C-alpha cells in the first residue's frame, strides 16, 4: 500500500514537470515570435504583417541606438531625415517635424513637399560641423552638399532635434538656409 502511494506520487511529480515544461515551451515560443520577422503563421493579414515587420525593425533600431553615444544617436536622427528628403519620402520626413515648426512654416504636407522639391538637392552628402545640447534639445550645424553640383560647399543649415525616446524624435531646420543658396544660384 505504502509502495503504491509512493508510486502515484512519483507519477504525479512526473506529470507536473511535464506540464511545466510544456507551458515553458509555449511561453518561449511566444516570446521568440515577438522578435521574428515575417512569421506568416501568427500574422493573418498583410497590414498586420507590415505593422509587425515595422515594429520588429523599430525594435531592432532601438536595440542598436541604445548602444550608441548621445551624439551618434542625434546624428542618426538627422541623417534619417535628410535621407527621407533625398528619397523624396515626404510623408516620412513631414511626420518627424515638430508640430509648432509645422504650424510656423509648413501648414500642410503639400507646402513642405513643394519647398523640398524646389530647394533641397536630390543627391546630398552631409557633414556635421557642430552639435550642442541646450537642455533637452540639440542644435546641429550641418553642411549640406549637393554631390551633383560642382559647388563644393552648398549650404549650411541648422537642424534642431529633440529626442523623446529611442528612435522617437521630433526636429526642425532653418528654412532660410536652402532658400538663400537657391536665390544666390538663380541670381548668378
Amino acid at each position, binding site marked *: 500500500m505504502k509502495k503504491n502511494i509512493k*508510486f502515484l506520487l*512519483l*507519477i504525479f511529480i*512526473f506529470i507536473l*514537470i511535464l506540464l*511545466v*515544461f510544456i507551458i*515553458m515551451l509555449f*511561453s*518561449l515560443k511566444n*516570446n521568440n515570435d515577438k522578435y521574428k520577422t515575417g512569421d506568416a503563421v501568427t500574422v493573418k493579414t498583410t497590414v498586420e504583417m507590415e505593422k509587425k515587420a515595422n515594429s520588429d525593425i523599430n*525594435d531592432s533600431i*532601438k*536595440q542598436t*541606438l*541604445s548602444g550608441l553615444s*548621445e551624439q551618434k*544617436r542625434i546624428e542618426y536622427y538627422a541623417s534619417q531625415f535628410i535621407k527621407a528628403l533625398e528619397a523624396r519620402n515626404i510623408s516620412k520626413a513631414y511626420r518627424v517635424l*515638430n508640430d*509648432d*515648426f509645422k504650424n*510656423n*512654416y509648413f501648414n500642410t504636407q503639400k507646402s513642405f513637399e513643394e519647398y523640398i522639391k524646389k530647394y533641397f538637392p536630390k543627391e546630398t552628402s552631409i557633414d556635421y560641423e557642430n552639435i*550642442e*545640447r*541646450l*537642455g*533637452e*534639445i540639440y*542644435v546641429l*550645424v550641418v553642411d549640406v552638399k549637393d554631390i551633383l553640383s560642382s559647388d563644393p560647399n552648398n549650404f549650411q543649415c*541648422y*537642424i*534642431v532635434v*529633440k*529626442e523623446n*525616446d*529611442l528612435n522617437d524624435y*521630433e*526636429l*526642425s*531646420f*532653418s*528654412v*532660410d538656409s536652402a532658400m538663400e543658396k537657391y536665390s544666390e544660384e538663380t541670381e548668378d
Partner: protein
Amino acid sequence: MRLKADIELKIRRFFRKYGKTIIIVFVIFSIILVVNKFAGELNKNKTPKTTYKPNVPIMGDTDTVPKKVQKSVEDFIDEYISYCNLGEYNKAYEMISDDCKENYFGTYTDYENYIKKRFATHKEYALQSYSLYNGKYIYSVKLFDDFLATGITNSTYRYIDEKIIASYDENKKIVFSVGGFIDKNEVQCVQENKYLKVDVNEKITFYEFEEYKIKLTNRSDYKIIIQNNEVENTEVLIDLGNESRSNLNTDEIILDPHESYDIIPSFSKSFDNGKTTQSVIFSSIRVVDENNEEIDKFSMTMGF
C-alpha cells in the same frame, strides 16, 4: 495484476535511470527561460542615455545638489521664467531675494528695464547646476528662443547665460537671486593721511566679478588723481595673494580740493575660484597743484 506490476517496475527503472537527468535538464531549461525573460524586460525598458545631469555641478567636485534644493530651484526657475514670458514682471520681481532687489537692482524700474531686455521675445530655458560653493547653489540658466519651433530660421544660434543662485537665509528659508548676484557685505576699512581719506564701506559679490563701494575724501587744497589711465590698468587693483586684478571701470577718478564722493570699482573674479581678496590697492595716487605739477605721490593698500 501482473501487467500492472510490470509497468510499475518499468516506470520505477526509468526514473531510477533517467530521473537525475530529467531534473538537471529541467533546471537548466528553467534558468535559460528566466534569463531570456529578464533580458527581454531589460531591452523593453531601455531609455536613451544622455550626459545631461542638470543637478550635478559642472564645475568642481562630485557633489550633487540636495533633493530639496533641486526641487526648489526647478520650481522657482519654472515659475520665474513663466512670469517673465507673460510680462508679469512684478510677480517675477517678488520672487527674488530682498538682498538682490536692494543691492543689485535698486528700484523696481531698474529691474523692469533689465528683464525687458532679456525677455524681448518668448524664451525657453535650459537649467544646469554650475557650481556649489560656500553654501551657494549656482545654476546656469540658458535663455533662448524656441529653436525647435523655428529651426533657427532667419536667426542665429545664440543664448543668454544667466546665473541664478539659491541659498538659505538666516531663517533657513531658500532664497533666490538673479543676474549672478551673490551677496553684499559691510566692510569697515578706513585709511587716511594728510591728503586723502579712503573709506571702504561695502563689498558686493557677483558670480563673475566683485564691486566695492568706497568713499573718497580729499582733505587737501590740491587736486588728487587716483585714476586717469596714465599708468595703464594698474592704478586701482585688488590683491588675490599671488595675482592682482585691475579695475574694470576705467572712468577717471580725480578729486578737487576738499571734494568727497563715492566710487564703485569693479574687478573680474569668479566667486568659486577659491581665492580671497586680501586688499584693494590705490597704487598711484598723485597730488597735483593748480598747474598740474606733481607735489606728492603715494599708494594706499586697504587690507581686509
